[in-house]
């Protein structure tokens, strides 16, 4: 979808929501909702997006919205979808709907993982969107399994004892591919056309679809608000957040940087990695670079094979 065409679609997430200035989740949600052609039933797992778009008595959603606990958005939306199918079967409904679940990385990678895995396995006709900002930002920056190695968070504080988070992030997109669902994609904000196309494809897919989109968090990443989109490009150029999609088991790379940049460029612009540049921590950057290279090689291999 061209951006000019997309601009003619209806606004589904309105202004007046209270996400932070420069939050990537606002951009992602606005674009994804515009790609949907039908009225939607939306659910949000507990997280920034949920609490800041639905502060009573306001809602920023033009569509039906269901509140959820942290762990069960996929279960809720799959239940709504099942009820809808039953109503259609009984002849009580014939309109088409999109069923969309939104979750942050905490509500998707960690706490909501079992309900997500179950919903995908049962094959509901729904779309799950994870906006990954790499920590529990809503409660004040606690580490999640999506937090990259070395990041300073309140539960993996960089100091004398440990230099930030000690583990690498979990590759959730790959785990969703292993569910053998029809469509899985990893998207980014700096390519809005690509994000719109992926969202459109996910909505058109019969059966479960999953999109993992990186969302900048200026508060948690300790980055400047205006760099929100630029940082997602740096993430793609350094291969820290590659863009790919897996359709019916076929891997496809969507963005190949002209020249792969060193991981320092991604780390340097964020305050959460500041301590990695202190003397004595050089080996950590080397380790992260090595891990990123391995991951990139693996992706290239998977995409070339198909």
């Amino acid at each position: 979808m061209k951006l000019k065409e997309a601009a003619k679609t209806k606004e589904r997430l309105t202004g007046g929501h209270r996400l932070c200035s420069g939050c990537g989740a606002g951009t992602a949600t606005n674009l994804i909702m515009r790609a949907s052609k039908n009225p939607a039933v939306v659910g949000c797992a507990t997280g920034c997006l949920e609490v800041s778009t639905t502060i009573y008595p306001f809602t920023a959603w033009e569509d039906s919205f269901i509140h959820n606990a942290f762990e069960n958005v996929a279960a809720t939306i799959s239940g709504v979808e099942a009820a809808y199918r039953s109503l259609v079967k009984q002849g009580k409904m014939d309109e088409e709907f999109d069923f969309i679940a939104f979750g942050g990385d905490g509500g998707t990678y960690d706490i909501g993982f079992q309900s997500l895995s179950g919903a995908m396995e049962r094959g509901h006709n729904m779309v799950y969107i994870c906006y990954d900002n790499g920590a529990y930002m809503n409660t004040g920056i606690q580490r999640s399994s999506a937090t990259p190695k070395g990041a300073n968070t309140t539960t993996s504080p960089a100091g004398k004892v440990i230099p930030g988070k000690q583990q690498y992030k979990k590759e959730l997109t790959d785990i969703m591919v292993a569910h053998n669902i029809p469509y899985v994609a990893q998207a980014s904000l700096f390519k809005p056309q690509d994000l719109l196309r992926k969202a459109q494809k996910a909505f058109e897919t019969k059966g479960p679809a999953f999109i993992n989109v990186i969302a900048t968090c200026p508060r948690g990443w300790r980055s400047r608000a205006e760099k929100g989109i630029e940082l997602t490009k740096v993430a793609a150029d350094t291969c820290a957040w590659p863009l790919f999609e897996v359709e019916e088991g076929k891997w496809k790379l969507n963005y190949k940087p002209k020249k792969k940049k060193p991981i320092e460029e991604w780390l340097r612009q964020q305050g959460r990695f500041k301590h990695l540049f202190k003397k004595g921590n050089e080996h950590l950057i080397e380790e992260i670079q090595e891990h990123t290279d391995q991951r990139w090689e693996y992706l290239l291999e998977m995409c070339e094979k198909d």
Partner: protein
Amino acid sequence: MIKPGDGYKSIPKGGLILEGGNAKRYNTGGWRTKKPVLDKDRCINCHLCWAFCPDVSILSKDGVVSDQIDYDHCKGCGICANECPVNAIEMVKE
């Protein structure tokens, strides 16, 4: 929409919000310290600012980006000015 002082009896059952998208009536423009100003002469109508705005504050009508920015909701993050390929947007102190 429920307002303070309305009393509990006027709250819809289950605390539902019966009107979609009423957050439009809540202004977040006061968060801003700098506001974006769009120079239409330079603008190439690429719509990148429209796509990137987290607050849906860059408006587009009939496929043309408007220089009337929604200052009621713009939080002044500066993403539009930073991403504009022709530097048509400037952040001006309020």
